[in-house]
């Protein structure tokens, strides 16, 4: 992946988050504190502002630096979680990753997120999108399929009861609403898939 590609990916991701910030905030308002859109926008805007700096680095270092930037800027629980995802991905990924390496690194990065959040699949969090995406990646699905799988996984959080994060304070009343972090994860997956798919 060239520096130009990574810079485009960052910009596209930040644009997608900014365009959906209100939707993410509304989701978080229903069963949380209503700041997820703002938090994610703050973080990804900060990453976009230094897109060229990140893109000039080798892939592992770029991902670690992006993760650190998210950690320092997001301001909500999603900050250390998405930050850990990128930092751990950077630690595991090769300089020129192939699909097998990407899949393995992504799996380890998800484990790191679960450890950071003391959480697991089924608790109505971003993990409920991350894991199915990893499985699809491991199962040889196309990027278009993977984007659809991410959306479906986010949709599937609607019926779950939240057991982590602020939504867990609501107990059964968290059922019937989509998890905000699951939605932002699916959004990022589709954005990256579109660019990578368009290029492939």
């Amino acid at each position, binding site marked *: 992946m060239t520096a130009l590609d990574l810079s485009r990916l960052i910009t596209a991701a930040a644009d997608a988050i900014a365009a959906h910030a209100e939707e993410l905030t509304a989701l978080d308002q229903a069963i949380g*504190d209503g700041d997820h859109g703002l938090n994610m926008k*703050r973080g990804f805007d900060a990453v976009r502002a230094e897109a060229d700096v990140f893109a000039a680095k080798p892939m592992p270092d770029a991902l670690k630096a992006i993760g650190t930037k998210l950690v*320092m*800027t997001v*301001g909500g629980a999603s900050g250390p*979680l998405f930050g850990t995802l990128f930092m751990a991905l950077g630690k595991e990924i090769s300089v020129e990753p192939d699909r097998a390496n990407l899949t393995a690194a992504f799996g380890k990065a998800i484990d790191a997120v679960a450890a950071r959040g003391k959480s697991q699949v089924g608790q109505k969090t971003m993990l409920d999108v991350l894991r199915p995406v990893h499985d699809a990646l491991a199962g040889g699905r196309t990027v278009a399929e993977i984007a659809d799988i991410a959306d479906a996984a986010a949709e599937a959080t609607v019926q779950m009861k939240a057991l982590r994060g*602020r939504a867990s304070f609501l107990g059964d009343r968290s059922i019937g609403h989509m998890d905000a972090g699951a939605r932002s994860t699916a959004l990022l997956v589709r954005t990256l898939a579109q660019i990578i798919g368009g290029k492939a």
Partner: protein
Amino acid sequence: MNVGIVIVSHSPKVAEGTADMVRQMVGDEVPLAWCGGNPEGGLGTSVGDIMEAIERAWSEAGVAILVDLGGAETNSEMAVEMIGEPRAKKIVVCNAPIVEGAVMAATEASGGASLREVVATAHELSPA
């Protein structure tokens, strides 16, 4: 040297007011620092601010961090990890209520208790 206390709330007002209450009980006998608010100053927490607060309250005897809700805990744990060893092993994010935990932990720390004892005192305030 006494164990230091760091107070991390989503609200800067809660963090500062808690620090006032701690100071009233223990004076300057305990290294103390607080932070609150996201990087824009709204409700939330900032990993950078937490790292700086740990720096201000640093004690070779260790530092106990009191946090309020979920994000404050996750961001504090992240801050400790970013500070890294050898200091990280002397920093504990307490599982305790922020206001009551800070006052009790600081009172214990002011008597020269070890980090383990300070943390245990705070943890007694939480359901098992």
